[in-house]
């Protein structure tokens, strides 16, 4: 498929000025004011672009450039506020910011898709809640807010933004920019939630996800997916009752001997693998009914864990506290799986296949979730990497 006409580029060295981080929100006040004023006018311009495009089939070049500047400026401003970038942005939305947007020239659009743009945008707007927060489903905000909160502390202490956090912010910003462009009739290409299109450091991590490319879904099992998962949910609950005390024993053992005992490591790995299989099935990220044992290699979306290795005792001792940011981000990212499942349910029921972008977004979130679980339950002491990267296909 051709590249999306609205693309993000990230040219950021992760360094952050502690002083500007400390006062980031205060420093952003002029931009907050300016962004609100510009947004007000952008709304009217958007209506004009909509009418002209409806008549001519192509957005007018001048207004297109103006609106593209607005979307670009919004991205710069958001990136600054959520710590995805360091420098104070310009007010004009001109290219050149570390987190920036590229726009293709205006192209023809189908009039029907233009006419019903707001209605068509509803699923994309629902997905945007995962990033922006708002609505009943996001108790603590979307990924942008949650990550910004923890990134603020991390950047203050280290003078550097964690790469996973920056990459996740870039993912959210890209999606929002594409959504703006779609809503403002700058393009008819639907916002792409596939994480693969976001530039990311893509750091190696010992916990990764193997994935089969098959997007076919059985309509019958899709329709009854929630109920079909019930025996697995019961089994997972029973397994969890055993796994939690086992994790505590593992923690004690890891504190004493400096690594996790092999048998306990295997048990916890199977439990996390099984829960990932179940979540993938429940949320339509995968098609077949999973097995009950969490056997490695038995499922199309399959987390892979490292063998038991030495772990820092200090990191082990404070593991649960260290994991708090990752757990919070995982909560926010988890919403992406759920919302994608809700939207994907209708699509899969109608087409008998899951949209690749939704499935890939889910795979990304499930991969991160497996990394968080592996960290919390002592399978590795490597911190989870939250960057949105393409999950390599097993096939």
């Amino acid at each position: 498929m051709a590249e999306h006409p609205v693309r993000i580029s990230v040219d950021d060295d992760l360094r952050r000025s502690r002083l500007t981080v400390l006062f980031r929100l205060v420093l952003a006040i002029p931009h907050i004011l300016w962004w609100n004023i510009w947004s007000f006018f952008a709304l009217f311009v958007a209506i004009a672009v909509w009418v002209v495009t409806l008549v001519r089939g192509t957005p007018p070049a001048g207004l297109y450039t103006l609106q593209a500047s607005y979307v670009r400026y919004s991205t710069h401003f958001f990136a600054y506020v959520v710590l995805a970038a360091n420098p104070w942005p310009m007010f004009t939305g001109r290219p050149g910011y570390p987190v920036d947007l590229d726009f293709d020239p205006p192209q023809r659009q189908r009039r029907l898709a233009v006419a019903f743009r707001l209605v068509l945008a509803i699923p994309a707007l629902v997905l945007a809640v995962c990033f922006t927060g708002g609505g009943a489903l996001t108790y603590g905000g979307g990924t942008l807010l949650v990550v910004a909160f923890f990134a603020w502390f991390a950047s203050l202490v280290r003078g550097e933004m964690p790469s996973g956090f920056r990459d996740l912010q870039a993912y959210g910003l890209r999606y929002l920019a594409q959504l703006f462009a779609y809503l403002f009739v700058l393009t008819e290409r639907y916002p792409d939630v596939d994480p693969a299109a976001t530039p990311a450091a893509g750091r190696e991590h010992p916990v990764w996800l193997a994935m089969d490319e098959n997007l076919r879904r059985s309509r019958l099992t899709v329709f009854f997916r929630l109920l079909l998962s019930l025996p697995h949910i019961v089994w997972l609950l029973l397994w969890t009752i055993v796994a939690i005390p086992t994790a505590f024993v593992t923690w004690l053992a890891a504190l004493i001997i400096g690594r996790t005992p092999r048998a306990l490591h295997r048990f916890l790995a199977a439990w996390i693998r099984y829960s990932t299989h179940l979540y993938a099935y429940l949320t339509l990220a995968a098609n077949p009914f999973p097995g009950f044992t969490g056997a490695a290699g038995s499922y199309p979306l399959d987390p892979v864990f490292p063998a038991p290795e030495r772990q820092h005792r200090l990191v082990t001792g404070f593991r649960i506290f260290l994991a708090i940011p990752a757990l919070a981000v995982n909560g926010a990212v988890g919403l992406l799986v759920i919302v994608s499942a809700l939207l994907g349910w209708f699509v899969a029921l109608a087409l008998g296949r899951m949209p690749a972008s939704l499935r890939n977004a889910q795979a990304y979130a499930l991969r991160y979730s497996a990394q968080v679980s592996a960290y919390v339950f002592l399978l590795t002491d490597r911190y989870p990497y939250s960057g949105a990267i393409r999950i390599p296909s097993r096939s």
Partner: protein
Amino acid sequence: MAASLLWQTSVPDDLVLPDVDATKGLDKSVLDDAEDFETFLRWSFVASQLAALAVLAVYARRGARFARESAAGRIGTGMLLGMIGLALVWLSQLPFELLELWWQRRHELWNAGYLDWFLESWISLGAEFLFVCFWLLITMALAAVLPKTWWVAAVPVFVGLALLFAFVYPYLVESHPAPPDVRRDALVFAQRQHTGPVKVGVEDWSDFTSVPNAYATGLGPSRRIFLWDTLLDGRFSRREVRVVLAHELGHHSRHHIWKSVAWYALVLLPLLGGVAWLTARRGGLYAPTAVPLALLALVAGSLLLQPLDNAVSRRFEAEADWTALETTRDPAAARALFRDFTREALEDPTPPGWAYEALATHPSIEERIAMATAWERRNARGRR
């Protein structure tokens, strides 16, 4: 022999039910309504069962292909196929259930909305899924160890589970204590029936239906009687409620729940034997691909055995009626109660023979009234 022993009841063998006019005191419009109402439900039931059998027959032939939708092992795949089978049956039953709901709403016997009904049905399907998975877990695990005789070993397992469920069930019911006068009556009746005290709870159903109902459940310390609040809303007199209470207590004092489990064991043996025999060609229940056929066999077998089940149930209900008459010694109240069942729940007092044999779990209203009259005459003779 076991069946013969279980068939015995305390209703006198020489009791002859007199001819009675079950329609006495009932308006013709009520009787017509009751007949219309039940006729529709009967035919809807017949059609829905035929639809279920047809769906399962097709599924038995073609259902094995759904095995490709599973990455689970042998038992997991069997579970998936079992659940899909139930899902298809559920889909086939939806139109009929919808019609029945409409019919009941039309007769003002059901108040809940269509959405409530759908959600309820959806949740019930989830419970059925869990049940069938558990069932298949046991049978398919046994089939791995005892490929040819798993069904013999399965009977004691399922009977044990039935006893466990019968024991636990009362604790799962949401209820509140019965009014003090009902509880007092329950204590007195328990003494008269020479059984220990049984707790009485009230379930709130009046938001959903106006149909009166009560049932006995539990074993040993979990024995309970549950009355629906529709029975206590003033439409039934205190004396009629006492008859209901004595009837339900009769189920406990005559050990009907234990006996029901014993009947279940007797019926289960040939039923599972039939399933084993039918599925043998497909590798028996060891093979997940035999599950669709096993479902068909189970449902068809259960339908065939339903007249026997109903006969047993009617026998127990008749004994509970008799016990209630012996306890309350109030046949007039019993007759009034049974007539009120026609008035308030549109029960046909004289159902056609085939419907009676195939569907009725209780004696007909006519039989129940006749029993009350027979008890009255018998005791009047005794007094003379």
